[in-house]
């Protein structure tokens, strides 16, 4: 064979002036309405949905970008804090005061109210050994719950989901309010569903076709061909979309939420919590807290959003008698350096604080000592509590799950729940 005959050369003639006129038939479908045809192997499991009432739910609120913990929970009596942050520190009089020593950022008025009611706890100095300062990497460590020299491809919520959804039809026990699924919610055998808005789960024009191919696909070759994994995911996706949509319409909350992405997300979560859905873990993010420059503006703006959305959410939970069943907690991939930088911002640091919000807290208020600013590691806070202890505690005590198995190691139990 003369290889010249083979047209591996690159004469693409791309374009040729051909322009497809933009058609106006972009249509938004709702995946959610028509009844779904599932392959037989899933059909059998369809009726097994477990809907415990009064069940415990976790809401994870991720503060992306590395929130500055020291201007969140403020050591208002600490001279080192004021010295290292000449223009960025927040004066005692301006803050939402919790105790003589501890105040919250001025935007967090609702958090202060939750503290006063006994519905808020603060955990200081949370982190992990050998911290990484890359956002992505450190977030991966928090998501996967690996050690900092391990690379895991699954997340702690995803592995919780594996334990809950063993051959179940729909992996809706965990749900992320987003367009893209985070590593935290990816399991070994199951992935959670990411949904920005259940009314328009994927907003796709080709929905009917997807349902058709699923219907026409012969599911009997399951386990034989690798493509079956994709059909299984497609079936779960369409089934979950339908289920989540229906549940979200069952008892939609009538409360008013702020018109922000987080407000809309927590409203969706509230409506689902009030339904009979089997979701145990909800995941939602706010950002960016990466405040290298002009921190005050950016953090205040984001905290105002967080404050108003969390207020609407907790008010809603109280009104509907679910405050005791829901645990909302915040985390960020790292805190920031103790000293401010030259741009009225802060750079990447290490340990950080977490908010824990629920009517079902056993320990409330400021749970442990504020950061020791006199004992730093090259300008960074030293961590005192491994974040995996927090996960283990929530998995074991709140979700009644086997934390050792899910986290791959035995971690300490905390007593806030």
């Amino acid at each position: 064979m003369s290889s010249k005959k083979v047209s591996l050369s690159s004469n693409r003639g791309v374009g040729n002036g051909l322009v497809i006129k933009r058609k106006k038939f972009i249509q938004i479908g709702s995946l959610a309405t028509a009844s779904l045809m599932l392959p037989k192997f899933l059909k059998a499991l369809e009726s097994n949905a477990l809907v415990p009432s009064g069940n415990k739910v976790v809401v994870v609120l991720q503060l992306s970008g590395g929130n500055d913990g020291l201007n969140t929970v403020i050591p208002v009596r600490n001279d080192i804090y004021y010295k290292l942050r000449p223009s960025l520190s927040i004066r005692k009089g301006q803050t939402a005061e919790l105790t003589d020593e501890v105040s919250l950022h001025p935007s967090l008025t609702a958090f202060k109210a939750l503290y006063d009611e006994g519905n808020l706890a603060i955990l200081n100095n949370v982190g992990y050994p050998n911290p990484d300062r890359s956002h992505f990497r450190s977030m991966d460590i928090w998501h996967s719950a690996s050690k900092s020299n391990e690379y895991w491809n699954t997340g702690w919520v995803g592995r919780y989901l594996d334990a809950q959804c063993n051959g179940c039809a729909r992996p809706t026990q965990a749900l992320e309010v987003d367009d893209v699924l985070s590593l935290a919610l990816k399991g070994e055998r199951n992935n959670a569903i990411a949904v920005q808005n259940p009314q328009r789960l994927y907003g796709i024009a080709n929905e009917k076709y997807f349902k058709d191919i699923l219907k026409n696909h012969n599911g009997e070759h399951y386990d034989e061909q690798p493509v079956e994994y994709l059909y299984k995911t497609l079936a779960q996706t369409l089934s979950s979309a339908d289920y989540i949509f229906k549940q979200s319409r069952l008892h939609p909350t009538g409360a008013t939420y702020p018109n922000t992405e987080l407000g809309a997300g927590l409203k969706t979560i509230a409506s689902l919590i009030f339904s009979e859905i089997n979701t145990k873990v909800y995941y939602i993010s706010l950002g960016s807290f990466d405040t290298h420059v002009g921190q005050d503006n950016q953090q205040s703006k984001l905290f105002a959003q967080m404050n108003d959305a969390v207020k609407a959410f907790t008010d809603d939970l109280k009104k509907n008698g679910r405050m005791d069943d829901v645990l909302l907690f915040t985390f960020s991939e790292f805190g920031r350096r103790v000293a401010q930088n030259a741009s009225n911002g802060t750079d990447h640091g290490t340990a950080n604080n977490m908010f824990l919000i629920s009517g079902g807290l056993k320990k409330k208020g400021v749970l442990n000592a504020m950061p020791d600013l006199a004992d730093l590691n090259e300008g960074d806070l030293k961590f005192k509590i491994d974040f995996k202890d927090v996960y283990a505690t929530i998995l074991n005590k709140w979700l009644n799950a086997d934390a050792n198995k899910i986290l791959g190691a035995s971690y300490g139990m905390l007593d806030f729940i």
Partner: protein
Amino acid sequence: MPVPNQVKNQHLLWRAGFGPAVEQLAELSKYSPSQYYKAIVKASGKKPAYINVAGEDLVSIYEDLMDAGKRSKLSADDRRELARKQREAVRDLNIYWLKEMVASPAQLREKMAFFWHGHFASRNQNIFYNQLLLQVIRENALGNFGTLLTEVSHSASMLIFLNNQQNRKGRPNENFAREVMELFTLGRGNYTENDIKEAARAFTGWTANASGEFVFRKNFHDDGVKTFFGKKGNFNGDDILELLLKDKQTAKYITQKIYRFFVNENVDEKITASLADRFFKSNYDISDLMESIFTSDWFYNEKNIGARIKSPIELLVGIQRMVPMKLDNDNSLMLLQKLLGQQLLYPPNVAGWPGGKSWIDSSTLMTRMRIPQMFTDRDELNLTPKQDDDQMMGRKNDGTAAVPVGKKKNAYAVNAQIDWPQYISKYTDVKRENLIPAIKQNLLQVNTPGLERSLGTTVDVGSREAFLKTATVQLMSTPEYQMC
């Protein structure tokens, strides 16, 4: 039933490249795979040209940076501007390489480079470091693994990414030594922690200068005696690499990884053992290893065909090879890479992309199945990728938005101009009733019986042209098309 040559050659083109191009369709059934592989090898023979996307302005900023005096005068604004220009350049490099994958005749070389890009995974903001490492990988993609390993280990991108500039006598940083052994050569569990400590000592003093050249800082080098794999000696970094190459475990580890990537996720121990033997005996000749894979009978075994889930890059490139198109705005290609979880030059970490089933969740699967419709203007890109703070430094918008659709928030038109006449001309001789089987044959490596029934209701029968277009788009919008 014997597998026909067309299917075998498509299989070969998907694995030894980024899938068949529309202009190749007619020739696929004419040659045996071994004949075809020869042509593929020949097309990848040339040394690849260095890709430089950095403009004069960036080069001159860099030249200033080399001068310590000028460097100290750089203001915070200058630095931010530099970072912005670098980000743009890295994005340009990403798109440039992606287009090479689509249009280059050197499919095998680019595919191999794509594999090494995931194997020697590095993240770096410096555009020149990126360009230099990419060149090392593309140049040596089909050469000698020992040379490739050595050049990557001497690259600024990898040394800086793995903190070796901090690895100094008396204050070792083990990151580089650990990853060289765990990820680049032996694989986890084939060395002791002490081997890592001793190797780290040997790599002390290895770093790079601002122009990306390897620098050995003698003052920082620990020239004491080290004990590595039971051998004592005054080893330096190159000695360690040589000792790692002398260990057959390296050949085994690399061969298994190549098998998983190019053949099947489920490793055949017998086959990989004999491949590893051959690889080791050939002193790590990559071309020889690939030839023994792609010309073997077992490679064309039915269980290996259509068994791999395409990575996002393979999917995006493969569509464009089959349906020639020009995008008004390359940013949609960036957006799709982010949404699907694979951005060139931006691996998640030093371990690279895990691949396989990890590509698929409900969001990525739905996005994948919507892409053909987005390219043909029947659907819009209305999804927001995760915020990326390593790139964004707290800013909200990174300018990778595509073309907004009206006033809708976060909804973009991909605006692809497709050369349909070229595509459609390939089917001129096919009778109408044979069109669907023919398109299906060309597009899919998995043959599932139910699919044709679904096409009945969605394909536009208005004209032959419309029929071909819609059937193609719908067949690409399937789980089957995700496989290769």
